[in-house]
């Protein structure tokens, strides 16, 4: 088990935690910094992002505004230091930490837990599907 640094509370070595509820997704090197991938976790599409600072984030992949499963393909940005992803469909931005949509009130996506075990990305779903 390799030690990984803790950054922004999201790239977390979870190897000591109760494995219950965590799903192994892919190796870390499958991800390009500041881009996302989509994974199907227990039938739910999840977008996972690796940022240039090394932090990992996971949110729902389905864009609540267009209904398409595409948020993993959005561009990463920051709004006053808060990391965001912009939906590639109509460009609304979602905060990666809170899931809140900056450009449309009352719209949000669920944020999921994401961590590493031996450089393998694991996701634990949050909220109801």
């Amino acid at each position: 088990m390799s030690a990984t640094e803790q950054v922004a509370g999201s790239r977390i070595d979870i190897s000591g935690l109760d494995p219950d509820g965590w799903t192994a997704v892919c190796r870390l090197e499958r991800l390009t910094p500041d881009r996302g991938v989509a994974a199907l976790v227990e039938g739910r599409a999840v977008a996972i992002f690796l940022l240039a600072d090394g932090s990992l984030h996971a949110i729902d992949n389905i864009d609540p505004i267009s209904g398409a499963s595409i948020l993993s393909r959005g561009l990463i940005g920051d709004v006053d230091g808060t990391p965001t992803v912009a939906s590639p469909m109509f460009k609304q931005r979602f905060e990666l930490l809170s899931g809140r949509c900056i450009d449309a009130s009352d719209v949000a996506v669920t944020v999921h837990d994401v961590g590493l075990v031996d450089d393998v990305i694991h996701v634990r779903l949050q909220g109801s599907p």
Partner: protein
Amino acid sequence: MSASEHVDILVVGNGMVGHRFVEAAIEKGLLANRRMLVVGEEWRRAYDRVHLSSVFDGVEEHDLQLGEDDVYTTDGVELLLADPVVSIDPNNRLARTEKGRSISFTDCVLATGSAPFVPPIPGTAASGSFVYRTLDDLTAIRDWAKGCRTGAVVGGGLLGLEAANALRLLGLETTVVEFAPRLMAVQLDDGGAATLRRHVEALGLNVRTSAAATEVLTTPDGRVEGLRFADGPDLETDLVVFAAGIRPRDQLARACGLDVGERGGIVVDDACATSAPGVWAIGEVACHRGRVYGLVAPGYTMAEVVADRIAGSDATFEGADLSTALKLLGVQVAGIGDPHADGDEIVIADPIAGTYQKVIVDREGRVLGAVLVGDSSPFATLVQCLRGTIETPDLIDVLRPSAGPAAAGGIGDWPDTAGVCSCHNVGCGTIRAAVREGFEDVGGVKKCTKAGTGCGSCVPVIQELIDAELSRAGKTVIKRLCPHFDMTRPELFELVRMSGIRTFSALVERHGTGRGCEICKPAVASIFASLSSTYILDGEYASLQDSNDHFLANLQKDGTYSVIPRVPGGEITPAQLIAIGEVARDFDLYTKITGGQRIDLLGARVEQLPLIWARLIDAGLESGHAYGKALRTVKSCVGTTWCRYGVQDSTTMAIELELRYRGLRSPHKIKMAVSGCARECAEAQGKDIGVIATERGWNLYVGGNGGMRPAHAELLAEDLDDAGLIKAIDRYLMWYIRTAERLERTATWQRKLPGGIDFVRRVVIDDELGLGESFEADMARHVAGYRCEWTETLEDPQRLERFTSFVNTDEPDPTVVGVTIRGQRVPAGAQS
């Protein structure tokens, strides 16, 4: 005497300054209990004389009218036109008009302006000899010019160059004749005048300086046929316009014994009062502290002062500096303070860009005067320095054009008391207040404050103030690219080009803030792509591309993609058509013919894209770049190959152009078309680049587009041969790519250029800026480095990794559900 009618205020003259007085009187409430009569000599009410020549450039006469339509129907105002005042009796406060109307007044405001100076030489009364002051003068010039080929303007100052522009717009071969050794001798120094002269000559005008006209040569029947000079050969000309300075029209005042200045002009004190009680003089007819102002701004200030005085206040006119910024023949020209002052000089001249800037400072670094030609963006800041309303910043920063007006002097930080519009005497504070009230663009601020509606030279400053005020209020200012880069796309492009930086992380670290966003990342990626031929998805570049570029396909509403192979010129073999059909059938793709003579295959899931492209490339097809801000298609007709009417081989040319510019990344998409004859079946005039065959070659149109705001392309050059056509397109495109804003089509970019299509022609065809070679070299590099992005992608298994719906399973995306309509698969819910 008993027949006289009485008015409280008699305004003699309805020019720009007389009109301003009327507006000021209304604004200040003078007419609540007073009657005012305005008497004008012309049959038109007041109009903008500063922009007279624009009526030959498509502006309607009515658009030059000053003030709202109802100004002269305000209660208490009467306007009497075409009946000038011919005599005044200041002792009895009486005036008489030409048609015999007798008026008694309490106050009389003389605003009779000035008359053009015509030198006392033989022949000035000949047919075809004109002055340049009124719309009627212009009408007469236009009528006479119909039978003329050449024209001359005597006078190379402000007015003379305006008049020369008018003749040029009438299509005359025009010569400007100036007595002094340089143009605009009062406002400019030798260096500035030389730069201006180059611009003027580049427009096709001839200039003769140090030329003293001694006689207007005439035909036996009394028509102008030339000019004779003290020195040098005669000048043949069919028409001559005298615009060599002005003289105050002070005859009324002289006749009634008012004091006049040594060189003319009615003498006024700081209250603008003449030597007779109750009689005031304002504008170009007034002589204040020995000086007659030939500019509109001081006249406007005088008008305000007199209105205030009549209202009972003690306002004063303290004189005005002669700082002025204007556009002459499309060239920005400004003189500030005393351009001939004795002091230390800072001069920045760029003969290639055609700019010249000089600032004169005293030992303490205070600005005494300045000359700006070609780029007057530092004008506003320098005027504030001259007046002492702001601390003088580092002048090099103010002058260096690359710093831009935003960096130069921080207009946003000017005090509220700093003046902005000297024509209407509007300060920063008033403009800021207007922005806070919700007038968030120049048009709104103009309406609300009048600022910028005089000579217009302060409009850039108004824009800056609006931007600053908006960003202070936390609102978006469109000018900078995004919150991460405080510069425009052209500035960023130049920075990337010159610095050699080719990674986003280095660029944002050194020249931006934060980590970038969905605006600046693709913009920078596009700039990198325009400047090199590197694969657009390698390494860090992958994180910069919009989703479409990232997957080299166009995202559709259900999360699937469309695929468009390139079909150069719309020419396709049956075998390729069959291959496309087979791919569509095998992957169950919806097919549709596009407007650009290609075939769109829709409904491909991400993981299908490489499989689809492997088949298409096998069939000899390549990426069509429909996903990029890049060249899309070059539409064509069948030309001479098949068509009975064709005059050139439009299909071959279209294919050549499409293969040359394919993959070229640009600020927005680019579309082209080539038509084989004037019937224009390829609709080239609605494209960014449109080529239409002629008997002798090709006509090149630029700056058209369809879409939401269709734009008709403009003719750039005629009868080009093949090489000339390609050279012109190379230059045009590279210039556009370097200097357009993000997502700005060629039409908008071209419209915003100073001088419009004429300027484009001078840069692209005449290579006036000397950039042609650099543009062509950039394009040659692009052409040599082009590779099909899909071929490159398929070559490398690592590059294919991203093309999966899910990173942890091969299951297709369960949200993509299709239904069948008219025999093809479309997204479920597409019909709802």
